[in-house]
C-alpha cells in the first residue's frame, strides 16, 4: 500500500501576522513556520497506518526551497521519503493540480492531508485533488481505518458524526482526533537527513484566483468592567455600544 501525505508550510499559530506591499503580500520576517496542524494529524495517522499495514509513506509539499525543513520534520516523524514541488503555492487550484500530477505518476492508494491549511484556510485542495484524479474525496475525517480495499471513516457533520466507507484509492481531508500529533524523537531526527527528498518542477498551470488585498481583523478594544449589581448598564452597553442585542 502506498500512502501520500500532503503537508502545508504555515506560520506558527502564535505568529504576529503582518502584510507588506500595500497589503498584498504576507510578511514572513521573524515568523516561524510549522507543518499545518491539520496536516500534522493526517501525518500522524499515516505513520500509524504505515506501521500497522507495512505501507510506504511519502510526504509532499508544494513550495519553495524554504519549506524543506518542514519536509525534513515530516521525515523525522516517520515518512519514508519526501517530494517538494518547486513552486509558490499561489492558490488552491494550482496546488491541487500539482498534487494530482504527482499522484498520477506514482499511483498512491491513499492520499491524506489536513481538512484545510491554517494560513489561507481554503479547505478546497482535497476536493479538487479527488476530482482531478476521479476518485472519492472525504472531509473532515476524524477517524480512518483501512480494512483491505475498504476505508472506514467517521466524518464530522453538523451536530453529530457520519460513518462511511469507501473503496481505495481515496483522498481524505483530516482533522483531530484522527490521531495524536507526533513529536519527532531523537532517532527520527538523526535519520531524517539521510532520507530521500526529491525536488520536482511544477507543471504549468494558471491560477484560478488572484489575491488583491488582505485585511487584518480590527484591533480589540479595551475591556469595560461593569459592576455585578448594575445589570441595566450592562444591557445598555451590549445594546448601544457592542450592538449584540
Amino acid at each position, binding site marked *: 500500500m502506498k500512502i501520500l501525505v500532503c503537508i502545508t508550510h504555515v506560520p506558527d499559530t502564535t505568529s504576529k501576522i503582518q502584510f507588506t506591499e500595500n497589503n498584498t503580500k504576507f510578511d514572513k520576517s521573524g515568523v516561524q513556520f510549522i507543518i499545518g496542524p491539520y496536516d500534522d494529524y493526517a501525518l500522524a495517522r499515516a505513520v500509524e497506518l504505515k506501521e500497522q499495514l507495512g505501507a510506504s509513506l511519502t510526504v509532499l509539499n508544494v513550495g519553495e526551497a524554504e519549506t524543506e*525543513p518542514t519536509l*525534513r*520534520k515530516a521525515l*523525522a516523524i516517520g515518512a519514508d521519503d519526501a517530494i517538494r514541488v518547486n513552486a509558490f503555492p499561489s492558490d488552491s487550484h494550482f496546488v491541487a493540480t500539482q498534487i494530482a500530477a504527482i499522484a498520477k505518476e506514482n499511483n498512491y492508494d491513499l492520499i491524506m492531508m489536513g481538512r484545510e491549511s491554517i494560513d489561507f484556510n481554503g479547505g478546497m485542495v482535497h476536493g479538487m485533488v479527488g476530482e482531478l484524479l476521479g476518485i472519492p474525496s472525504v472531509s473532515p475525517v476524524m477517524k480512518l481505518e483501512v480494512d483491505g480495499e475498504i476505508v472506514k471513516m467517521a466524518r464530522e457533520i453538523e451536530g453529530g458524526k457520519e460513518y462511511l466507507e469507501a473503496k481505495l484509492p481515496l483522498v481524505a481531508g483530516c482533522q483531530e482526533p484522527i490521531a495524536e*500529533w507526533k*513529536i*519527532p*524523537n*531523537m*532517532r527520527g*531526527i*538523526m535519520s*531524517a*537527513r539521510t532520507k530521500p527528498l526529491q525536488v520536482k518542477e511544477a507543471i504549468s498551470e494558471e491560477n484560478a484566483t488572484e489575491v488583491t488585498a488582505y485585511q487584518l481583523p480590527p484591533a480589540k478594544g479595551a475591556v469595560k468592567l461593569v459592576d455585578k449589581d448594575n445589570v441595566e448598564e450592562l444591557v445598555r452597553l451590549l445594546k448601544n455600544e457592542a450592538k449584540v442585542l
Partner: protein
Amino acid sequence: MYSVIRTIFNEEHEMFRQSIKDFIAKEITPYNAEWEKNKMVSRESWKKLGDNGFLCIQAPEQFGGLNIQDFRYNAILVEELGLSGCSGPAIGYPLHNDIVFPYILHYGTEEAKAKYIPGMISGDLISAVAMTEPGAGSDLQAIRSTAVDMGDHYLINGSKTFITNGYLADVVVVAAKTDPKLGAKGISLFILDKNMEGFSKGVPFEKVGLHAQDTCELFFEDVRVPKENLLGKVGEGFKYLMTELAQERLIVGLAAVALAESAFLSTLEYVQQRKAFGKSISDFQNTRFKLAEMGAKLEQGRMYCDQLVSLHNDKKVDPAMASSAKYLLTELQCWVSDECVQLHGGYGYMWEYPVARAFADARVQRIYAGTNEIMKELIVRKLLK
C-alpha cells in the same frame, strides 16, 4: 529576543529544539505545578523522555544508545528546559544526562555499563551523584563516608546530603574514602543502586526554591557493593570528579542563562501590561533602562554560552573556564531575577507569579556544583600559575 544571530546550530539542531519545545509544552509544563507540590517530577516523565530518545544521547549503540557526540544537543535540552521556567526539570534531567551518566560511561566497568546504561537511556533508571556530606561540602577531601575492601566486595558506610534527584534515584554515584588517612588520594567512586541492602533515603527537603526537585539525604549502613561497581581505579575518585565537574559547571551556567531569560521574558510582557500613573510601566525611564541592561547582559551571556558549547564540543573547556562560566552566569541569573521581581512590585513577591519562583530558584545556583567562592579560587589558581 536577541539581535545577534546565533551561529553554532544547524538545521538538525533546530529540529531537535522544536521537538524539545513541543515535548516540554506537552509533557512538562502542564504538570510542573503538581510536581512542585509533590516535591518531585513524575517517574512517567522520565520514561517519556527515554521513549523519545532524549536521555543519554551520547551512549554507545551497543547499550541501546544513539552515540551522538555533539554537546550542542545536550545544550539545547538544557536551554529549552530553562526557557520553560520549569526549574526542577531544568536541573534534574540534565544532571542525569550530563553529570552522572559521564561517570558511568567514562569510568564504569563493562559489567556496570551493561547493567545500568540501558535503563538510564530508557528512563527506567534515574540517577544522582553524591559528594556532599553533612560535614563536607566545598571541602570535599574531608568526606567521612568510607568504603572498606572486603575482598570480594566493598562495604560502604556514611551519609550524603543535598542530593539532587536523590529521592527518585535508582542509581547513585557515591564518593567515599577507601583510605581515610589520605586526603584527595583516598577518595574513590562507586555505583550504588537503591536495591542494595543498607541503602536508605530521607524525604525530599523543604527548600527555598526548585520545588519540583527531589533533593534529599542518603544513608549507607554496611552497604555491600560489588567490586565491579567501583568506578575507575581505587584512590582516583577525586581526579575523576575534578575532570567531570567542568561539564557539570558548564551545564549549571547554561541553565542559569536560560532560566534568567525565562524570568526576563515574563517581565517584558508584564511591564507592557501593567499600568501606573496612567501609562504602562514600560514607558518609564527606569523600567526602560533596567530592561536594556538586562537584555544586553543576557545577550552577552547567551553568546558566551554558545562559544563555550562550541569549545566544549572540541574538548577545549578547562576547569577554570567552566568555573568562570558558572560564576558569572549564576550571578547574572540572580541579578536578573532580582531586578525582575523589582519591576513586578508586590506581585513579584507572590508565588503564583513565575518571577517569584524564578527568584527563589536562582539563589541555590551560586551554591551548588561548587560555590561561587570555590569557582573564584579555581579561576585565580589558573591566573597565578
